[in-house]
């Protein structure tokens, strides 16, 4: 299978298909304390990220919306990764993810989120992967505007 799809396997790893088919935490969150909308006007990807922050910890996080496999999987993986994380750590992770997706790999291993690192080789798709992260960043920093990756 690897040979048949070549470089595409770097982008579309099995974990990504799994999260695209069955996105985790894919629902609205009534008890959210923070929420933000994200939109990529170029491709029409649209999502809303919800977070409940208690004692400076993101103890619940979810999302709804629609997008391509990369943006959906990235959002789903993100909700798994940040649930239970202090807000400051989420912000650090946002920075490291952003670096991994756009520029250079951060010093630390990002665990399961590493499956998204292949995006860097597909410049047209970087914004798909960063959308959810920008939106979460906006939500928890209380920025009011819709996050845009265009």
């Amino acid at each position, binding site marked *: 299978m690897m040979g*048949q*799809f*070549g*470089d*595409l396997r770097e*982008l*579309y790893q099995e974990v990504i*298909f799994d999260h695209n088919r069955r996105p985790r935490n894919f629902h609205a969150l009534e008890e959210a304390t923070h929420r933000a909308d994200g939109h990529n006007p*170029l*491709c*029409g*990807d*649209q999502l809303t990220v919800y977070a409940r922050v208690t004692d400076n910890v993101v103890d619940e996080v979810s999302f709804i919306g*629609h*997008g*391509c*496999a*990369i943006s959906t999987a990235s959002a789903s993986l993100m909700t798994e990764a940040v649930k239970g994380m202090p807000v400051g750590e989420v912000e650090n992770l946002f920075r490291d993810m952003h670096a991994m997706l756009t520029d250079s790999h951060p010093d630390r291993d990002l665990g399961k989120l590493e499956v998204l690192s292949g995006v860097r080789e*597909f410049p*047209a*798709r970087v914004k*798909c992967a960063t959308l959810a992260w920008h939106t979460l960043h906006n939500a928890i920093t209380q920025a009011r505007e819709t996050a845009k990756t265009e």
Partner: protein
Amino acid sequence: MNRAADFPILNREVHGRRLVYLDNGATTQKPLAVIEAEAGYYRESNANIHRGVHWLSQHSTDLYDRSRERVRSFLNARHVEEIVFTRGTTEAINLVAASWGRNTLKKGDEILLSGLEHHSNIVPWQMVAEQTGAVIRVIPVTDSGELDMQAYAGLLNEHTRFVGVCHVSNALGTVNPVADIVRMAHEVGAVVLVDGAQAVAHQVVDVQALGCDFYAFSGHKLYGPTGIGALYGRKALLDAMPPWQGGGDMIHTVSFERSTYAETPQKFEAGTPNIAGAVGLDAAIAYVQEVGLEGIAAHEHALVKYASESLAGIPGLRFIGQARERAGIVSFVVDGIHPHDLGTILDMEGVAIRAGHHCAMPLMTRFGLPGTARASFALYNKLEDVDTLVAGLHKARRLFGMEQSA
């Protein structure tokens, strides 16, 4: 038709594969004749126009004028003064909106736009509507992607001052019955602008036969350079319209008290124009005329037919837009695979398509879709290109676990 050899870029590879360029609705590739014409202009003929003391300036002016005459004959306009050079379709529509619209429309007037329009024939009118108090109304689109002509008839009334419609839909390929649309609009005294961006490369256009008041197109979708296009406007209308940009070349006399303006079309062409672009456009139209638009239309019709039949064999593929008359475009979605993912996977096969909303977000909303995948054809495409597209779509389905390897 086998003219691919005229297009040098088609020899290049993308991701190690032969380039299969199916994004002609976005822009077409350029034949060597056009590339050489533009380069040759800079090599041999460059000077500013209408500064005619020296020979080279007169020569450059002649080339620019020759291009305008070529556009006139291409559209079968009555007078060469009816052709205004612009940066493209978008600027042509903005010219009409800013000059004619802003000075003509009043509160309560109705602007009627088709639901198939590209953003470039929506947003300029929204801006004018905001400034004038005119109201925008929309001609609905049927499930097959055609304009609802009965609804159109019902929308026309004594308040309708303007109708804006594309000749061919850029998202679906629908060919609109423009002559009928114009005739009905004229019955209520409305002015009609036709966005011809997706039409001119695919069929013969005769503005007198269509009867329209304005017709806009871009050179770069017609095998010509980017940054050059034209607006056709009926002379009486253009003569009555004020300039929209001021500067050099559009004036008759200037003093600090008062300036007088040049005649149509110069009064709409402020500043040094895209002369090299006009020269390239001249070469592009000459090329298309040499190949023959009837032959191009027949070739593309065959490609669309073959693509429709071949794509229909892909499980979960649904066509968006099944108009009876279509030109050069097949728009579709595949169950379970977002158009953007299709675009990336096809790109790795060397196949360039457009994935997204095609700058027609209201139309996508009408179909309840964030976007579609669009294959759009040109005279250099081959049946084999369609086969590569189909093979790429099967590969996408295999990658997404929807199909087993053959």
